[in-house]
């Protein structure tokens, strides 16, 4: 009898669902480029979220149908989007008035590294030959009320991303509220990193083994 292999942790889809569950009805939300964008597909029914994109649109709608794209109606990832009824456009300084001024409720970002005190590194490996590019990440972590991070728990070559201290240049210090990985949902508190939920077939020891920073239950 062949034993079916146990699925360990959540899929990307499930990770995005976990984040979506934690965003209250009526929130103003900025989704980072990449995996964070998936969160929009899993908003629980009955909730209305308003998406802001820092290049000047509040009320971003779904991806346009093929052939309906407008190259001048794009999101921060420079991909074509649409608008909802009730959307509005504004210039970049007004856009960052929303962001820096604390008007956005939730920002979901990817991460290269997160430290035990909520430091986030997600813009540069600091490598000598890398072209540094920061975009709006530093403004977002400095200004948005709640910063949620969605990321694989470990790097592609198996190294921990949740560390005692980030080795990469920081995006912001002590800015992360919660971390949503394939293995767990972890809250950053003053006393340390607290595991709120374990992924399917993940136990605490397994999780700690894949995490450099000390975790609390």
């Amino acid at each position, binding site marked *: 009898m062949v034993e079916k292999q146990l699925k360990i942790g959540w899929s990307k889809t499930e990770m995005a669902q976990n984040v979506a569950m934690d965003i209250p009805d*009526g929130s*103003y939300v900025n989704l980072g480029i990449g995996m964070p964008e998936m969160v929009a597909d899993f908003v629980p029914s009955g909730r*209305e979220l*308003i998406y*802001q994109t820092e290049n000047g*649109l*509040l*009320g971003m709608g779904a991806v346009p149908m093929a052939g309906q794209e407008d190259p001048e109606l794009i999101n921060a990832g420079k991909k074509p989007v649409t*608008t*909802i*009824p*009730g*959307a*509005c*456009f*504004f210039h970049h*300084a*007004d856009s*960052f*008035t*929303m*962001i*820096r*001024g*604390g*008007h*956005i409720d939730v920002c979901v970002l990817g991460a290269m590294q997160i430290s035990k005190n909520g430091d986030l590194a997600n813009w540069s490996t600091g490598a000598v030959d890398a072209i540094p590019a920061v975009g709006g990440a530093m403004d977002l972590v*400095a*200004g948005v009320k709640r910063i949620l991070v969605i990321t694989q728990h470990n790097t592609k070559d198996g190294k921990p991303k949740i560390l005692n201290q980030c080795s990469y240049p920081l995006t912001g210090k002590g800015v992360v509220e919660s971390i949503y990985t394939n293995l767990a949902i972890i809250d950053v508190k003053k006393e340390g990193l607290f595991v709120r939920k374990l992924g399917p077939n993940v136990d605490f020891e397994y999780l700690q083994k894949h995490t450099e920073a000390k975790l609390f239950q």
Partner: protein
Amino acid sequence: MINKTVQSLAEAVQNIHDGATIMISGFGEAGSPIELIHALIDQGAKDLTVVSNNTGSGNVGLAALIEQRRVKKMICSFPRTANSTVFPELYNAGEIELELVPQGTLAERIRAGGAGIPAFYTPASVNTPLAEGKECRVFDGIEYVLERGIKADFSLVKCELADRYGNLTYHATARNFGPVMCTAATTSIVQAKKVVEAGIIDPEIVVTPGIFVNHIIEVSNPAHESDLVAQKLTYPW
């Protein structure tokens, strides 16, 4: 469904607390949310700090709020205008505080408060009494003064059109301080001449994006302050 419209002026202002800092839009009567101010008079909150360009005229609107001894401090650029007697009398009697701010500095301090800018440098008021006691600093050979952003607990703003998300347009020079005040208050309360369905206001012409607005009340026939003053009315009437 997000719906920021409320059913009465009383509901719109119900959470304003004693001691609150309140920004009130308007330049003279243009843009002054007179029905919201009267609702605030009815509501009763006191010991208020009010940020507004002027101090009202006659015995209605902002002047009436001051006359009711509900304002302990005004932050404004021009506290005396034609038909303004209430503030000057209380000020000369030492019964109300005044923080006088150059008009452009006032607008920029409010914008800064809304934009997460705690402080900025401006050339306005350097070498005048209004810069006294403030940090001055030279950049590229020119002297500037450091000014702080201002935030408020509430803003009371008048606009033209609004939708359920709080997107706003304004009318002519009634726009003045409304857009920046909406950004700088924890709770922005707006009276709109007309509330329309979401999507009616072209996304290109929205002046205040809905994210800056909390409560909207339709006041389809707002009073003109100058008419009330001409009739020598006093609020409460």
